[in-house]
Each structure stands twice: as structure tokens, then as C-alpha cells.
């Protein structure tokens, strides 16, 4: 089963987290990205995520495979929403299980950073003033 997925439906976190369970695991770090009501000083009333599905699946799987190789973790998974989202909706979930919390936190943080940097997903924000726009940020300093 794929470790990375795009989902057009709301995410069921307990179901997603179930695959992280392992008798050797003592720690599970997870991250959720939520749609916030503001960005760069502007009021946001919702957004739409669009993805290049084939390339996103390939890059997402590559990131999770690399995380399992780089960090002393047991399992890791990530799901990203696509489609229309409202304020407060869950946009992305990352979960990592490990024997110890150092590796779980480090890998979880690394995965979300990589997903944001290189998975072809784009955010179209709808602003409170009625206009909308694609976010094409300058690459963050790595």
C-alpha cells in the first residue's frame, strides 16, 4: 500500500494512523496542516488545492521512502487533500512511528518540509475581498 496519497475526501486520521502501529514503536509524531483564516496579512475565506496527481504520487512516495532510509523510524505516511477546503479543514497529515521520540519528531518535520518543497500541489486562495490567486512562493531557504 502506498505511503503517500492524495485525497479528494476529508481525511480519516485514526484510519491513517492505524498503519503506523507496531509493537516496537514507543513514539508517534504527527503533523496536521489546517486551512487558516489568513495568509501574508490577507483574510482568507477558503482555498482549493490542485495537484499533478501522477508526479505528486511519485514524489510523495520518494519522500517517504527517503525518510525511512534517513531516520531510525518504523513507519511513516502522508496524505494531502485536493479540491475545495474551508477554514479549519485538514489539508495535510503526516504521521511517523519510531522506537524513540527523537527520530519520530525529526522525520515528521523533514517529511512535511519536503512535501511542501517538492510535491506538485498548488494552493488557490480565495480572499475575503472576493479575489483569488495561486500561491507560487519563492523557494524557502533550505
Amino acid at each position: 500500500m502506498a505511503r503517500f496519497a492524495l485525497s479528494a475526501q476529508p481525511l480519516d486520521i485514526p484510519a491513517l494512523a492505524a498503519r503506523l502501529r507496531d509493537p516496537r514503536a514507543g513514539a508517534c509524531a504527527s503533523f496536521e496542516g489546517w486551512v487558516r483564516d489568513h495568509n501574508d496579512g490577507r483574510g482568507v475565506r477558503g482555498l482549493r488545492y490542485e495537484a499533478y496527481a501522477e508526479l505528486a504520487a511519485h514524489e510523495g512516495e520518494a519522500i517517504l521512502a527517503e525518510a525511512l532510509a534517513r531516520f531510525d523510524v518504523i513507519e511513516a505516511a502522508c496524505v494531502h487533500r485536493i479540491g475545495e477546503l474551508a477554514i479549519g479543514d485538514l489539508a495535510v497529515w503526516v504521521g511517523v512511528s519510531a522506537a524513540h521520540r527523537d527520530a519520530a519528531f525529526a522525520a515528521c518535520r523533514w517529511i512535511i518540509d519536503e512535501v511542501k518543497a517538492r510535491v506538485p500541489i498548488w494552493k488557490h486562495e480565495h480572499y475575503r475581498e472576493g479575489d483569488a490567486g495561486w500561491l507560487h512562493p519563492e523557494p524557502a531557504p533550505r
Partner: protein
Amino acid sequence: MNLRVLYFASLRDAAGTEAEDVQTHAADLAALHDELQARHRWALPRARLRVAVDGRFAGWHEAPREGCTVAFIPPVSGG
């Protein structure tokens, strides 16, 4: 040579379509980009884009192949 080009996000808005079939003599993907940018006039310069062929990231200096699918990837904003 015939190939298919996919457009996403602000590039799709500029092109006015998600995808189009393109006939080209471009020697590499950079030249293909410049040809299509001259037609559709998207705002992002090539230096801020990446390019993908058949669902994998590729290099600008690779030559396009007959029948392949090319996508120009604007800066991503997932998460």
C-alpha cells in the same frame, strides 16, 4: 514532433487550457518552454519553473520524445 503539454495553476490560467497537443521542432525542453511561453505569456520566468516528462521530473536540456507528455511545474504550495 508531436507531444502533449499539461498546464497547472497559474500556467493553466495563462494557457486557458489544462492540456494541449503541440507540434514542435524544439531541440530541448527549455526551447519547448520558450516556444510555448511566447504563445501563452505566463508570468513566471523559466528559472522559477521545473519541467516533468511522463510524470517524472526531468532536466531542461533533455530532448522531448515523440508522443511524450510534458508539464511545466510552477513553484508548489502544498501543505
